[in-house]
């Protein structure tokens, strides 16, 4: 067995132990070390050289990155999640003799959920299109799709209710974040739709359980709103720019020059 491979395996064992212990700082350190070591393996993407231990090495690397994804969920680092997911992705798309991983669907679903949370709907659908139709039946992915549909329909309560039906424990974290996304969406709509709302209505609308939460939310996210006499006034964030003036002079000049050119046609 290749000593480098052994070394990586050992470090990975340490990482897993720390992961179980929820010692995330150690995990981070070990992970970084693992990643650097992995760059030295020629059998891994993007080179895919067929070395004798290629399959084992790839399986190990995939395992490492899957753990990295879970770790980033645990430490609630969305950027890291995205990074790790993309580095993991080649192992799913370009298998090169690799056995499918059991974690594949949960992780793909997780990614979809992440996109939903970040309100990146376009990318969400791009990812969706790239999945084989069989994968769509998987509960993890189906969950994400249903959420997206509810989200689009505006059935926000259904989105929030979905928290109870998560197919994987790691999704819970995302459901909280999703609630926030939904709230932002509603706030944006209300702002456009109403001049003002009574605090009560606003609280219901924004799905808050208490007025304090509402006030706190307004202070943090929408300082331009004003709370007066039991009403929330949505100051129309700066009157929309006056509609563009028609560049009449320019048009006239252009037309005249066309006419002149037409006369001059050789």
């Amino acid at each position, binding site marked *: 067995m290749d000593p480098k491979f052994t070394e990586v395996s050992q470090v990975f064992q340490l990482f897993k132990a720390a992961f179980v212990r929820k010692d995330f700082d150690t995990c981070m350190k070990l992970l*970084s070390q693992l990643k650097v070591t992995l760059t030295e393996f020629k059998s891994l*993407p*993007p*080179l895919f050289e067929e070395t004798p231990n290629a399959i084992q090495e790839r399986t190990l690397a995939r395992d490492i990155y899957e753990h990295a994804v879970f770790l980033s969920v645990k430490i609630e680092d969305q950027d890291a999640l995205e990074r790790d997911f993309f580095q993991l992705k080649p192992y799913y798309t370009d298998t090169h003799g690799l056995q499918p991983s059991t974690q594949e669907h949960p992780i793909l679903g997780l990614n979809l959920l992440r996109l939903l949370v970040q309100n990146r709907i376009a990318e969400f659908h791009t990812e969706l299109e790239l999945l084989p139709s069989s994968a769509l039946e998987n509960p993890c992915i189906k969950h994400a799709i249903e959420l997206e549909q509810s989200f689009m329909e505006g059935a926000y309560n259904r989105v929030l209710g979905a928290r109870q039906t998560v197919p994987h424990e790691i999704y819970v974290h995302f459901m909280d974040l999703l609630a926030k996304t939904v709230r932002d969406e509603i706030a944006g709509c209300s702002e456009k739709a109403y001049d003002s709302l009574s605090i009560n209505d606003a609280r219901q609308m924004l799905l808050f359980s208490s007025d304090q939460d509402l006030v706190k939310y307004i202070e943090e996210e929408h300082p331009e709103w004003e709370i007066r006499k039991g009403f929330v006034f949505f100051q129309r964030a700066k009157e929309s720019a006056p509609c563009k003036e028609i560049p009449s002079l320019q048009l006239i000049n252009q037309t005249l020059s066309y006419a002149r050119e037409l006369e001059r046609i*050789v």
Partner: protein
Amino acid sequence: MAAAATMVSSAGGLLAMLNETHPALKLHALSNLNAFVDYFWPEISTSVPIIESLYEDEEFDQRQLAALLVSKVFYYLGELNDSLSYALGAGPLFDVSEDSDYVHTLLAKAIDEYANFKTKAAEGNDESVVVDPRLEAIVERMLDKCILDGKYQQAIGMAIECRRLDKLEEAIIKSDNVHSTINYCIDICHSFVNRREYRREVLRLLVEVFWQLPSPDYLSICQRLMFLDEPDGVANILEKLLRSDNKDDALLAFQIAFDLVENEHQAFLLTVRERLSSPKLQYSESVQSGSSEPDSVRDRNATSTEDVQMTDGTQVDNSALHTDPNEAIYAERLTKIRGILSGETSIQLALQFLYSHNKSDLLTLKTIKQSVEMRNSVCHSATIYANAIMHAGTTVDTFLRENLDWLSRATNWAKFSATAGLGVIHRGHLQQGRSLMAPYLPQGGAGGGGSPYSEGGALYALGLIHANHGEGIKQFLRDSLKSTNVEVIQHGACLGLGLAALGTADNDVFDDIKNVLYTDSAVAGEAAGISMGLLMVGTASEKAGEMLAYAHETQHEKIIRGLALGIALTVYGREEEADTLIEQMTRDQDPILRYGGMYALALAYRGTANNKAIRQLLHFAVSDVSDDVRRTAVLALGFVLYSDPDQTPRIVSLLSESYNPHVRYGAALAVGISCAGTGLSEAISLLEPLTSDVVDFVRQGALIAMAMVMVQISEASDSRVGAFRRQLEKIILDKHEDTMSKMGAILASGILDAGGRNVTIKLLSKTKHDKITAVVGLAVFSQFWYWYPLIYFISLAFSPTAFIGLNYDLKVPRFEFLSHAKPSLFEYPKPTTVPTTTSAVKLPTAVLSTSARAKARASKKEAEKGKPSDKDGDSMQLENPADKKAEPEPSFELLTNPARVVPAQEKFIKFLEESRYVTVKSAPSGFVLLKDLRPNEPEVLSLTDTPSSAAASNAGGSVTGQQGSASAMAVDEEPQPPQPFEYTS
């Protein structure tokens, strides 16, 4: 694509890795991305900002790799500017020698960019423009590589483009064949370097390189020095060669002189002549004996009323008490070279050649004359013009003499041009020009005997005879101008003076003409305007401002037009220097001045094919409100493009289909001017439909242009020439044809057979130098739209197509060489035949009045020397039609010095190896000095006092009369001046 098959399907993973915190991961991602960028650039392009930030991160140690990656992505995105700037950031990682599209494209871009920078820096004189040293480094790396790899031409091209004269010099010196490299350099320098100033710099460098060579090519050096306008250098070289013991060096010096003369740069030649130091001798007697000394010509003429004496090289008084034989030889050679530099030797030889080889077809003229209605004065004068052009420089005025009655119908201005026509016929007849014209010249005081029209015409004729060599006649013309106040005579004198003093920028003459201008007489003022331009041609003097001011002041359109053209002439060849003036003229309110502006553009950028000028002209051609301006703008394109005739038909082809007849006319003449004498197939195809245009003046222009293109092209090489001749004949004979197109046809037949068919229209000398006289001649000629007598200016553009070999004594020895092509390809057009016998009888009467005497003299000499003349006559291969039918045409012919060699024939000329003479430079035409390998044998001379020059043993013996007169042509026996004739009206 095996690599691609085992590759990842997306670069997303690697891109994600870029965001990792650990630098090792970033590096890993970068280097992998760099390897796969060719496939994944679309994905990477979205992450460019991240990579850019890596490049800008001072702490990241692989910034250059990041830069290279970004550069490649930008390259794929087509953002070459960004790509280049990042490639520069990549430093050594950007490998110049890599063989990939990316590197090639970026290198090209880098060189372009660098060249741009350097050009801007040089042109704006702006030292503040600092070229990125990294850019410079890349270009230098590239240049060095080219030189190392032996790709000198590429290196030279790049060096010139980038204004790196140091590298240029290096490339030239290191190349294996320095001479050919330099010639290549000169070629591209003339065709691709647009800035005049920069071109001079390059040439100056080339001259320096020339000097460093062990065996300098003096011919080339002198040409370059001429371009640089450095007469001192030329004079030094000539003097050195002349003082050499070796006779060959002297021959070379003569050759250089002839080549310089061909470029027609009068002012320059005069200076060279003056700078040649006089021999160190007590030389008093030569002054007295040498009224033929060229440097004394001017003073002598100030007082003399005699004709200008031709310098005769052998006339130097060798009996003088020479102390030093070397000095004596030098003195003798000096006299010869001065003769050559004055242009007189070549003019004299060309004149002899044209005279002896004259093959003009009087029958054509006769047909024209008969078919033209008597009362139609336009066609009448057109016939006279055609005659003059057909016999330009041949001194044969038989036609006029035979038809005195008919001629006398010319009245007023027609008389003016009839008289002036003599000047065209006798062009270059420097010795006897005065006496020839004497009967018509103003006698004594103002308005002596004859009609002012013939007097004015005679003065104009004198100018034409002495065009560009008018040192001798200038004073006489000035006197005539001062002593008259008849505007017709002033008109003629102004034109004559302008022609004679072409380009000399003589202030006294200028003042004289200015006085005429300020009389504000329309007729004289017009000529004065043109004349001032001729005088100041190419000087860009501030006089132009004066002229412009007067043009605004005067009421007369004619004067404005004359001045406009005059102003245009002053900026001849000045390129960018003229821009201010051109701008001023083209924005003027007055269409006539804008029209002058077009000419200014044409002349300032003559033959440069400068894009800016072409763009401007095309703009005016379609946008100006005045038809005149539009016509001229299109016409001017012909001048700008004449160095590259293949281009013109393409550029004006759209314009030739314009709805505006003026534009079509301009297009026709533009093609005529720039493709003159080339017989270019596209040009003919373009002109053909125009010759049957619906508008009469378009037909006129097209016919004239076609004739200019087809001059000296034989029917055998392009069958359309024959068709065109028949078309001309048909138009002339057709009673219902418009006068305008009829006139065009008559002129066209004149041009087609110009100069006894031994001349062509050439705007470039063999060394690609523009012939100032020719260009100016055509420019003024194109004015005939307004003023018919200006048609004669076309004669300035004629240059004899001859090979004239000269020996050390500047005589023409017998010397044979080979034209390796079928004779029929380049032969003279067959003389027209008339089925009736009457004209056949008439023909032999076309005899010069002197021919009887000459014939007698010739036969006497023949008898003395016992030499049958017909034997020599064969050599001209004027094949007997009967012989031709009998045997298949030979694939070559032997030509005898001097011989007609048309431009298309030049590439077939070969010199025989066993020949007695060897040429000093291998040129297929023009004046060529011959080295005598057997100096001890007696030389047989042709074109001199031996009667063997009976080259005119004519085809079919139809014109027997000229045979005798031809033999009378000799250095010391010039043809007698023809008897003066009087108008009988």
